[in-house]
């Protein structure tokens, strides 16, 4: 932590939400400068939550929840890059089907997030996520911002978007139905892989050499 900066409690706040699920720990690494925890849960292939610092000036957090491909359930993604004067972030519930065509999916998962999406539209620094390939896998209700930290309360205000999206996602997990038929499972599998590829590629590009190398392998 840079002198005088108190990083936002990213992993703590997200872990509080995750604890509503029956988590089965599959990996944990709490070596100096990082936190990395991976879990399995019903209907979920993998949940990963972690953070680390790069030098003393950056605090990076990430949370991915990848559903099992035989469930009709989106993918949760939260990315957090915190510095002394600004926080860049992206939080989304990414569709694992073509949500233009699968309208019931859009209505169930994305339209119900819309009030949260509209609420955080007033957050200072709200902006489309800069990376084109990542924007292409985002849903219509993603929230991204580069929030200027003009007072310390801004850190928690920005973090609230992540906990609210996650809270909704956890409710989705509880009543997610199985995917309807082999074609749907195939579609979901293809899309999950495409999303993971886009996110992994962005993270490798953004943090080449700076990130704890093993962390990305666990996330994606």
């Amino acid at each position, binding site marked *: 932590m840079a002198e005088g900066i108190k990083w936002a409690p990213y992993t703590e706040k997200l872990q509080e939400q995750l604890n509503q699920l029956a988590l089965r720990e599959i990996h944990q690494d709490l070596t100096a400068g990082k936190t990395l925890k991976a879990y399995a849960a019903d209907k979920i292939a993998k949940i990963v939550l972690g953070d680390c610092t790069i030098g003393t000036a950056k605090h990076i957090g990430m949370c991915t929840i990848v559903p099992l491909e035989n469930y009709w359930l989106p993918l949760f993604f939260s990315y957090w890059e915190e510095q002394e004067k600004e926080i860049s972030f992206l939080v989304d519930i990414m*569709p694992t089907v*073509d*949500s*233009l*065509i699968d*309208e019931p999916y*859009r209505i169930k998962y*994305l*339209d119900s997030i*819309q009030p949260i999406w*509209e609420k955080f*539209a*007033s*957050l*200072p*620094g*709200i*902006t*489309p996520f800069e990376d*084109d*390939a990542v*924007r*292409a*896998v*985002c849903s*219509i209700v993603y929230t991204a911002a580069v929030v*200027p930290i003009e007072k310390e309360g801004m850190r928690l205000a920005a973090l609230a978007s992540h906990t609210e999206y996650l809270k909704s996602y956890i409710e989705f997990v509880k009543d997610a139905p199985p995917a309807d038929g082999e074609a749907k499972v195939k579609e979901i599998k*293809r*899309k999950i892989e*495409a*999303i993971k*590829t*886009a996110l992994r590629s962005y993270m490798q590009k953004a943090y080449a050499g700076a990130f704890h190398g093993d962390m990305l392998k666990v996330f994606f």
Partner: protein
Amino acid sequence: MARVDYKDMINFADDLLNKYKIFEGIDFIPLETYEGMDTRPAWDFKTPMATGYYKPYLIKGSTAVEKITIGELHYMRRAKYCALNMTASDDYDLPIYACEFDESAPRLGITVDFMPVVDIAVHPEYREKYLDQLADLWRQYRTLPGFTKEGRCLVQRRYAPWPWARESLSPYSLDGRVEEPEDRYKVMDAVAAYARVWLELLKKAEPVKDPQYKQEMLARKKVLQKLYRERDPGGEVIKKIFGEDKHHLFVSLIF
């Protein structure tokens, strides 16, 4: 906030054709029949509420175009509802160029985009081939006042009440509400710049060969067209002006 009189509103179609000359060198042929409908009633209309035209064209010698429609509807000398739509024929996977441009005294509402006809999350090569051509323009124009306000960039939020419409957008849509007269003209630069990119892509377009990909592409294209023709709130205005029987013709030419 400056109000703009009807007489000072932007001449959308005329500016694109004669000021920006986006179709210079292209030989248009009027499209008289579209999806079995006689399009001529839309070429020039005058009703107690509205005047204007929506003219659909093909390009001479090209099989790659389904329609290029340009038009304006002037509503009671109070507002203009303008559109430019460029849709490739079913053998081609070019995105749909769609521009909706509605001007009234207090503001201009605009959406311009290349709507992908495949799911770009699973076809990143499609995004790279067609949509990424807009990346620099998008970054240039998204900062226009109205698209960005008080440090917040609000593109992709104009269709907030219509999630089905947001689903149709690419990562490069420009949309918003612009108030000041000089900023409204800057929006026209974006409309023309996006159109030029689409027309360049058209020159290089090749028919789709993979039958499975084509099936996937056509399924999405038909859903897009159905959604806009059945649900676009502008369609209700069209219905009110032209009646139920002409409604389908007009919305099918506009999207």
